[in-house]
């Protein structure tokens, strides 16, 4: 193994989300020789989004594995490696390509701990770039997270900005449960400051939400690519005299309902925002539970902003499909109409 010494300049750096994930994976590989990276084009190419750039060069072909082109094989062999004591991090190249691996994820990865009555744990991370807004062809813009949220035995998380992505990927690798790790593909090139030495210690636990903007009038719940959208919407709402609290859910399974309920009981209003279709989506689950647990605090029904109940549309009209700042503000207006 080649150990890469952190240059003296490494401390707090301004990094893209892609680069932050790369630094997080590098840390994980350095910290534990059992950590492996496997996927299509993750080696020499460094991944189509460059998340694994340079890792094969530094950690070798046995630890950063360019696999045959078959997603079920990636996850299935990762399960076998985990049974042998390894901690594989799989890359699925695009959201729409995860379905060949769906059986291995749902029937094997998610259920092995239960099947074995806890004798076997599978610390496998499956990274999936998700969401639209990049003008791509079909199968490259989907948001399939709720399929995994519905599957007991998996943890499902989504990162929203570079600093959190850096911490979350390391937390996911450390987690003894299988983690489906969604990365907001249109935010790969967004930049924030990332605290490389202290970022993990400072981050909330992997199953906790974080409040990014405090507010008193309405709660905006979001994750992944919608985090930035909702933060921008909160700024716009403030100009209209409405104080919006923005919560990045981070963990989609389990959901951090303690944080959600506390905020909604304070504001009395709630909007859930995601790119995935609203039908049967995470917003539906949150709305149902918020209605039950915060009923006497609610000033209005929970509003949902999300994709329509259609297959992902052609990219020239995706802007009409994807939630944006105006559609979030529109939902805020609908809430205040009660």
């Amino acid at each position, binding site marked *: 193994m080649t150990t890469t010494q952190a240059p003296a300049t490494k401390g707090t750096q301004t990094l893209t989300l892609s680069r932050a994930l790369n630094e997080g994976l590098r840390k994980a590989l350095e910290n534990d020789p059992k950590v*492996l990276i496997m996927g299509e084009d993750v080696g020499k190419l460094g991944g189509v989004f460059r998340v694994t750039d340079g890792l094969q060069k530094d950690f070798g072909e*046995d630890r950063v594995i360019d*696999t*045959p082109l*078959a997603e*079920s*094989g990636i*996850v*299935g*062999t*990762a*399960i*076998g*490696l*985990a*049974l*042998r*004591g*390894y901690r594989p991090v799989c890359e699925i190249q695009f959201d729409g390509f995860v379905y*060949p691996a769906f*059986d*291995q994820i749902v*029937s*094997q990865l998610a*259920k*092995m*701990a*239960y*099947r*074995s*009555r*806890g*004798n*076997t*744990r599978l610390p496998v991370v499956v990274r999936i770039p998700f969401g639209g807004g990049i003008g791509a062809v079909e199968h490259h813009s989907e948001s399939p997270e709720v399929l995994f949220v519905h599957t*007991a*035995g998996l*943890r499902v998380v989504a990162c929203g900005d570079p600093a959190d992505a850096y911490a979350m990927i390391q937390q996911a690798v450390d*987690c*003894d*449960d299988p983690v489906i790790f969604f990365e907001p593909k249109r935010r790969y090139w967004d930049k924030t400051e990332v605290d490389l030495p202290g970022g993990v210690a400072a981050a909330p636990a992997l*199953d906790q939400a974080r409040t990014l903007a405090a507010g008193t009038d309405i709660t905006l719940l979001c994750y992944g690519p919608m985090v930035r959208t909702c933060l921008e919407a909160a700024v716009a709402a403030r100009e209209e005299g409405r104080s919006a609290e923005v919560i990045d859910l981070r963990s989609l399974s*389990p*959901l951090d*309902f*303690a944080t959600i309920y506390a905020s909604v009981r304070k504001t009395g209003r709630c909007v859930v925002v995601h790119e995935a279709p609203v039908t049967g989506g995470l917003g539906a689950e949150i709305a149902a539970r918020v209605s039950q647990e915060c009923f006497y605090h609610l000033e209005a029904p929970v509003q949902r902003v999300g994709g329509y109940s259609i297959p992902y549309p052609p990219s020239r009209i995706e802007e009409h499909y994807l939630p944006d700042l105006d559609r979030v503000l529109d939902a805020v207006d609908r809430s205040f109409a009660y």
Partner: protein
Amino acid sequence: MTVRAAGRAASRSRTSNRPASAHDRPATTPELIQLLTPEGERAEHPDYPLELSADEIKSLYRDLVLVRRIDFEAIALQRQGELGIWASLLGQEAAQVGSGRALGPRDMAFPTYREHGVAWCRGLDPARLLELFRGVSHGGWDPKEHRIHLYTIVIGAQTLHATGYAMGIQRDGAVGEDGEATIVYFGDGATSQGDVNEAFIWASVTNAPIVFFCQNNQWAISEPLDRQTRIPLYLRARGFGFPGIRVDGNDVFACLAVTRKAMQAAREGQGPTLIEAFTYRMGAHTTTDDPTRYRLSAELESWKLKDPIERVKQYLIRSGMAKEDFFAGVAAEADELGRSIRKACLEMPDPEPLSMFDNIYAEPSALLEAERAQLAAYLSSFADEEVAR
């Protein structure tokens, strides 16, 4: 095509969508490795010399009989309502005992849901198998303890797990003279699965220390082999870049010798082998299946003549290695095993209802704790009613 040939093709197409053609048959009859004929005569093969002591042969015979007895008792338990279902291994004892006995203590086996004979050879208590079929667990043994993974029910999925495990052996530096290897079991039907083909590719390009052990029992529930393949299955290995061998799956000697050699090759770093154990599922697919709907009894009768146990018995008798007292002793032991399995099954407690929330995540889950409390409260509400009455 002659008129008669065309007629044959037409009549054939009623049961099969494919046309009859010269491509239907391989150029040569597939070679079948056999070291003990159905009549119980010893055969030799230059590539698979096998020296077995009388004690070793008797011990193989004992395993075959005991494994068949486990199967027999489990079917009876299912018929009596004590098991929900059972997948019988009847007819496949030699394939499983022969290959299972070829494994070293550090090798790792990945079974389907029918590998009761392999589980026996790995030292797993048969009662643990019954737990799954009784419905008190989904398996639940520790794969590390006996180095046999949990039964996998989704067809072919375990071939990828075994391949990944073998890749782990490589990364641990455990390939070499004193190396470890993996064996994965699957059936003829599974060879049509994408996962199995992906596992072949992975194992081939990584040169993984793995043996693919296909028990071709001729039937995937009701579908005959010609629904899965147009060539002998062992020939497929060549297209993936590793050797394939067809062995008489009802010959425990041949299964032992062929698996030993393939496992040793894998341990030493020579990569994967596909073994096609040519056998026959003499029973139903499971206890819910009715094979009389789709296959002729004559076929079963012809395979009975190739019974995997009878030929070993004949060999032991003819060679003078065993006398009647030995066979009577094994039969008595089998009866005792049957009784002990039955007792273990009947004494098996149902799990506590609240245990359904256990072992889903490594860390405690607030959601599951809430649901557990909800079910507990609901159950105790009936207890209160009982008291009130």
